[in-house]
C-alpha cells in the first residue's frame, strides 16, 4: 500500500533524524525539528509516535504512525472489509486525533484535557476563565451521555461533517 519509493524516502528521513545512529528515534530527535517547536501541538504529536511508555521508536513504529496520514484511496474501500481496518481509515485518523487530546488514555476527553489543548492552541490573550467557559460549552455541546467528558463516539459524531480524510492526509511525494 505504501510504495517502495515512499518507504525509501521515509527511511532516509528517519536516518537523518536519528542522530544517535542507533536505528531508533528518541524524543530529542524529534524535538530537534525546528518547526515542531513552534507548533502548539508539537510535543503531543511527538508523543504519539512513541508507544506506551517507551522512549524509542524504531522505523516500523515511525511508519505505523505516519501511515495514519496516508490519503484514503478509493480502492481501499473495497478490499479488506473483513480484516482489520487499514491504518489510514477515517476512524483511525480520528482516533489518532482523539488520542492527542486524551492524555491519560481513558478514552475520554475530560474538561481538563480539553482545557489543556485549548490553552496550547490559543494565544495568551484569552484569560483562563474564558477558556474554561469555552471548554465547558464545548463539552456541553458534544456530550451526549452526560458524563461531562467527550468520548470517542461523541468526538466522531461532532466531526462527522468534517472532511477528516483530507485534513489528515499527507501526500508523500514520490
Amino acid at each position, binding site marked *: 500500500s505504501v510504495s517502495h519509493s515512499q518507504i525509501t524516502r521515509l527511511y532516509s528521513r528517519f536516518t537523518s533524524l536519528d542522530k544517535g545512529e542507533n536505528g531508533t528515534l528518541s524524543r530529542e530527535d524529534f524535538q530537534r525539528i525546528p518547526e515542531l517547536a*513552534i507548533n502548539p501541538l508539537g510535543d503531543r504529536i511527538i508523543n504519539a509516535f512513541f508507544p506506551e511508555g517507551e522512549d524509542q521508536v524504531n522505523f516500523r513504529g515511525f511508519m505505523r504512525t505516519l501511515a495514519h496520514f496516508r490519503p484514503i484511496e478509493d480502492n481501499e474501500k473495497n478490499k479488506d472489509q473483513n480484516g482489520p481496518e487499514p491504518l489510514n481509515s477515517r476512524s483511525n485518523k480520528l482516533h489518532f486525533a482523539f488520542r492527542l487530546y486524551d492524555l491519560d488514555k481513558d478514552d475520554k476527553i475530560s474538561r481538563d484535557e480539553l482545557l489543556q489543548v485549548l490553552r496550547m492552541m490559543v494565544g495568551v490573550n484569552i484569560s483562563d476563565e474564558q477558556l474554561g467557559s469555552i471548554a465547558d460549552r464545548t463539552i456541553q455541546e458534544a456530550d451526549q451521555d452526560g458524563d461531562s467528558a467527550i468520548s470517542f463516539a461523541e468526538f466522531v459524531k461532532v466531526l462527522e461533517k468534517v472532511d477528516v480524510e483530507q485534513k489528515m492526509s499527507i501526500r508523500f511525494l514520490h
Partner: protein
Amino acid sequence: MVSLSAILAVTFCGICCKKYVEANISQKSRTTVKYTMKTLASSSETIIFMFLGISAVDTSKWTWDTALVLGTLFFILLFRAVGVVLQTYVLNRFRLIPLDRIDQVVMSYGGLRGAVAFALVILLDREKVKAKDYFVATTIVVVFFTVIVQGLTIKPLVTWLKVKRSDHHKPTLNEELHEHVALPPLTLFPSLKAFDHILAAVEDIVGHHGYHYWRDKWEQFDKKYLSQLLMRKSAYRLRDEIWDVYYKLNIRDAISFVDQGGHVLSAAKLALPSMPSRTSMSESSVTNLLRESGSGACLDLQVIDTVRSRRDKEDAAMHHVLRGSLYKPRRRYKASYSRHFISPDKQERQDKEIFRQNMKRRLETFKSTKHNVCSSKSKARLKEKGRKKAIPLLSQKNISLTKEAPNGKTHRNVPWQDAAPVLVMVSSEEEESDSSETEKEDDEGIVFVARATDEVLQGKTTPGSLDVCPSPCIIPPSPTLAEKELPWKGDQGDLAVYVSSETTKIVPVDMQKAWNQSISSLESIASPPGIESGPQHRRFACPVLEEQPQSASQAMPEQSSCFQFPSHVSKSGRSQSDSSPDGPEQQELQPLMATEEQGRMPPTAEPRWLMFNRASHL
C-alpha cells in the same frame, strides 16, 4: 542597448537585489525605501492608467482593426483557460488537495491585464514595429475589457459559484445565522485547528516538501558567495534591526505590563496573528458547513430550546474569541503582497509565543520526571526567523545590585557559571510578589533567582561539550513562580531589561543538548515561508560554556548597557568591554559557524557567546 525590455529588467532586478539592498542599509533607510517605493508604485499605476485613458480617446495613437481586436480578445480568454488547465493538471499530480474545476474557472477568469501590458506596447518603437498602432489599439481594448468587465464581474461570479473564500466577516454572518441555525459545536473549532497543526507537524517530521532541498542549496550558495560579495560585513548584524523591533516590542510589552499592574498574561499583548490560514478551509469550512447543512440545520432547530438566545450570544462571542485567537498553523508561503498595505509580520509573534510555551512545557515535563537531576539551565528561545529575544539588559542600577547578590552567594554562582545562564529576574517595584522563591532576593532592582540544588552545583562536572544557550530567552519557571514578563526599570532611559522571568531549570544534560540543537536549528531554518532576512541566523544559541567557577561579577554586566551572559564566564578574564567590539565580529563569525553541522555544538569555539551586545545600539 540589447533591445530587451526595460520594464522586465527592472522587475527582475528588484526581485534579485532586494535581499542585498535591504541588508546593506540601515533600518530607517529600509523603512523609507519601502514606503517610498509603495508610494511611487501607487502613483505610477495611477499615471499609467490615466495615460491609458487618454490614449484611448486620442485617435492618433492607435488604429482600429476589428478583426484583430476581437480575435485577440477571444484568444486571450481561450489561451488563458488552456494554460490554466494544463498547468493545474501538472500541479495536481503533486498536490494533496487538487485544484478542482471551480478553482480553475476562477483562475482563468481572473486574468486581468493591466498597466504592464500597456506600458510595454506604448514603448514599442514605431520604426521597428510598423504595426504598433494596431497593437496599441488592441491592447487598450484588452486592458479595458479585462479590467472593467472581468474585474467587475469576478466577484459576483465567485459568489455565484459558491467558492470558498477566506472570510473576514464571518462572525457577523454567524451572528445573524445563528438565529436561524444552530451553531456548530464549539468542539469543531479547536479540532479543526488541531488538525491543521497536526498536519503541519507531521509534514515537518516527514520532511515534506522536497523542493526545499533545492531552496536550501540555493541559500547555501547564496550565503557563501553572493552574500559575501554583495553585503557589507555589518549586514550580518541584520539582527540588530530585528533587535530593534524586538526591543520596541518589549518596551511596549513592558509598558503595558506596568500599566496593567502586573497581570502576567496581559504583558503579552501581542496581537495574535490574523493572517488567513494556510488553507482557508478550516475557517470557511464552518460556514460551509452551515451552508451545506442548511437542511440539517432545520432538524436542529426543532431541538433547540427557545430560551437559547442568551446562550447563543455567548456562543457567538466564544466563537469570535476562539476564532480570533487560535493559533494559525504555520504558513508555508507568504501571503500575497499588496501594493497598498504592508502587513506586519504577525506570524513571528505567534511563533515566538508558541515556542516559548512549548519550551516551558518541555522543561516542566523534564522537571517533573527528573526531579533530582542536577543541572540548572536556561534555554534560549529563538524565533524562527532569527528574531532573537534580546538578552536581558540590566540597567545600571540593577547591575550594581546584582553584583552584590552573586558575590554573597557562591553556591548560587556556581551553577550559574556552571552550566547555565542564570535567569535573572528583574522585577519592578510592583512585582515583589515572588516570595515563594526562597532564594530570591527582594532587592529593589533585581531579583536574582537561581534555583539549583546544591548537589547539582557541586556535583556537576563539566559537561564537556555542553552547550548552553545563554542567549535570550529564558524559559519557564517552576510552578511556584508565576511566569511573567517583567518590565524593566528604565531609569537609564535607554536600557531595557526584558526578562522572561524564569528560574533556572533543572534539566538533564542530554535534554540540554537536544534543546540546543533544536534551538540552533530553529535559527537556521531556511524557512520555506518567505524569508526576508538575509544571512541565516546563526546560532546564537549555542555557545559553549565551560564551567569554571568564577566570580559572579564577571557574569554580571559591567557595562551598563549589556548584559552578557555567562558565556564569558567560560573564559576568564573576558571583560564586558571586550565583548563589545568583539560583538560584531562574533556575529560575523556566526554565519560562518552556521555552516557547521547543526548537530554539533561548536566546541568551545565562541568563547563569548554573547549575543546581544546592545552597547552599540544604545
